[in-house]
């Protein structure tokens, strides 16, 4: 579609050029248009403003959309596509509210059953999460604690940068030990000392740091992935929350290809341990990470489209703004038009002059808009950690759209100028 428009524009440009090649008038008209615009810089800029903002908005929306998608894709490939998450409760996508007890269906027996019976499962980690304040000395920081088993490190591919991981022994005894992420290190130990061996307080419970996690940076949604504490799941369950159920069980399939079999197997095992009758609904939900990422990615696509369409409407308004200013400009320059006609300008020369002027306004506006869009995108990445990436075709598209706006909204003013009667125009005061 873009290509067709581009080719159409090119053909028109070539036709105009061929029409005028022998007379070399176009170059002259171009110069006149540039001069007219630079003679009234403030107004030219004002008439461009709509286009600048509109194009910048489109570019920013597209770059955030594109950036998020790329980042999601990168995350998927980083994590591996074979992560599977088991959540308590039936599939909630129907929107039916469930009573709290249905959210407590994942227990230690399920974890053990998966460990013992599932042949397609490579790693398993039950998960209990809670959030709160971590304190060391006079420093504190709000964070989340993840209670996990050792295999979590393999599932999420966490690496230890400093110190060691907690041990199987620590899990058995619900030891008050933890691993902390880079953000916490920076905020709790700002003077650069090694946190390993130090004891912090999380929700008033003292926990000893045994290791520091290697940084993962921000994820697709601008969320800091390094603001976390990982503890043995037993510690979170017994020492922090006093609960006996898990919020999630993360599992990784042997390979990406066996994801479906793994899900089948998990369903079978869990139904058995939960003693569900054949006709009963699952009281848990299984998603693969890949599937969730797909859903998110397509949701982001729709949001991007909506935002881009909204931004595109502002371009329409901008076009009308250009038309207004051009109409005023034609009226103001009636005498000039009359003079040009009296020394031999044809109607087409006059209409071309104003058309080129309006195209010049919209394309220059488009150029500034693209630059502004790039700037805002860079700012969004720097300040809000949003992943952005300006798709090159959106730049091309912006210029094409701007040219079309210039032609469409410049047409009426250009016609108005070309239809002036030379005598009346030259007498105009």
């Amino acid at each position, binding site marked *: 579609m873009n290509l067709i428009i581009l080719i159409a524009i090119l053909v028109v440009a070539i036709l105009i050029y061929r029409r005028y090649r022998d007379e070399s008038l176009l170059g002259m008209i171009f110069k006149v248009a540039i001069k007219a615009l630079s003679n009234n810089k403030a107004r030219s800029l004002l008439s461009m403003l709509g286009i600048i903002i509109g194009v910048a908005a489109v570019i920013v929306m597209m770059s955030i959309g594109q950036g998020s998608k790329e980042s999601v894709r990168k995350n998927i490939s980083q994590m591996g596509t074979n992560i599977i998450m088991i959540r308590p409760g039936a599939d909630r996508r129907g929107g039916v509210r469930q009573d709290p007890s249905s959210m407590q269906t994942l227990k230690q027996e399920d974890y053990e059953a998966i460990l013992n019976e599932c042949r397609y499962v490579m790693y398993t980690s039950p998960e209990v999460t809670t959030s709160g304040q971590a304190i060391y000395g006079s420093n504190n920081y709000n964070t989340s604690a993840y209670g996990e088993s050792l295999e979590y490190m393999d599932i999420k591919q966490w690496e230890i940068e400093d110190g060691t991981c907690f041990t199987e022994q620590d899990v058995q005894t619900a030891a008050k030990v933890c691993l902390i992420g880079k953000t916490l290190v920076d905020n709790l130990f700002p003077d650069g000392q090694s946190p390993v061996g130090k004891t912090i307080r999380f929700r008033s419970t003292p926990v000893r740091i045994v290791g520091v996690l290697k940084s993962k940076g921000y994820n697709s949604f601008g969320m800091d992935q390094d603001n976390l504490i990982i503890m043995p799941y037993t510690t979170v369950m017994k020492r922090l929350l006093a609960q006996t159920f898990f919020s999630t069980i993360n599992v990784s399939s042997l390979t990406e290809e066996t994801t479906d079999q793994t899900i089948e197997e998990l369903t079978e095992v869990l139904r058995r341990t939960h003693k569900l009758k054949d006709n009963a609904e699952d009281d848990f939900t299984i998603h693969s990470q890949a599937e969730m990422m797909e859903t998110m990615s397509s949701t982001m696509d729709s949001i991007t489209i909506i935002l881009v369409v909204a931004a595109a409407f502002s371009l329409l308004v901008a076009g009308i703004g250009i038309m207004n200013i051009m109409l005023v400009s034609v009226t103001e320059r009636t005498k000039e038009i009359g003079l040009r006609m009296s*020394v*031999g300008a*044809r109607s087409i020369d006059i209409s071309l002059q104003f058309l080129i002027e309006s195209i010049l306004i919209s394309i220059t506006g488009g150029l500034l808009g693209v630059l502004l869009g790039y700037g805002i995108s860079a700012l969004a990445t720097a300040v809000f950690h949003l992943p952005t990436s300006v798709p090159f075709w959106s730049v091309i598209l912006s210029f094409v759209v701007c040219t079309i706006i210039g032609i469409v909204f410049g047409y009426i003013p250009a016609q108005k100028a070309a239809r002036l009667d030379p005598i009346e125009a030259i007498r105009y005061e």
Partner: protein
Amino acid sequence: MSEDNRKVVIELKDVCRDFKVGDEVVHALRGVSFKIYEGEFVTIQGTSGSGKSTLLNQIGCLDTPTSGEYYLDGVSVRKMGSNQRAKLRNRKIGFIFQNYNLLAKTTAVENVELPLMYNAKVKPKERRQRAIKALIEVGLGDRLEHKSNQMSGGQMQRVAIARALVNDPTIILADEATGNLDTRTSFEMLVLFQKLYNEGHTIIFVTHNPEIAQYSSRNIFLRDGQVQADTINHNILNAEEALAKLPKKD
């Protein structure tokens, strides 16, 4: 004068021009006929509203007659399309207006270049050279890069004359070209027009001032859109001498 073997540049045959104003029809020109030969310096006089400007617009191909025929260089203008008339204005006519009509914020050279821009046969380099030459001819060789708002009325009118000359037109038309200028500057312009006349240009000069008419070769009087009188001036006064007699400006 053996008028018959001179070249006819302009021939009007019973030219009428009506304007519709509301329900009324204004007959601005009611059957004007005359021939103008190459190299004549014609003044057109008449009271206000007698149709002088309307006539000049016909001759300048800015307007078309309601009826009657107009031949410019032997070609009928009435049947032409607007593009052809634009081309005629560009190649054969140099128009000078009462209020100069220069482009604002634009230098003298660029103003004079304007007609050549719409003449594709003139390359950009040649355009500038010809503009400079025309400006030197009207005595503005030292004001080439002055902008229109940095010049006096007389200088602006000189630029306008240079602009009318630059395309080497068949006829030069002036509508009250000295109307806005003081006596001395008016005579300076007349000197310039007489110089062009002596070089063989055909000039048609609309004026209110009967004194100016004495410096031209032929006087046409309009009244109510008709030619009232058309006389040859056998005793053309010399504008340069008249200028010398005028009190000097201090």
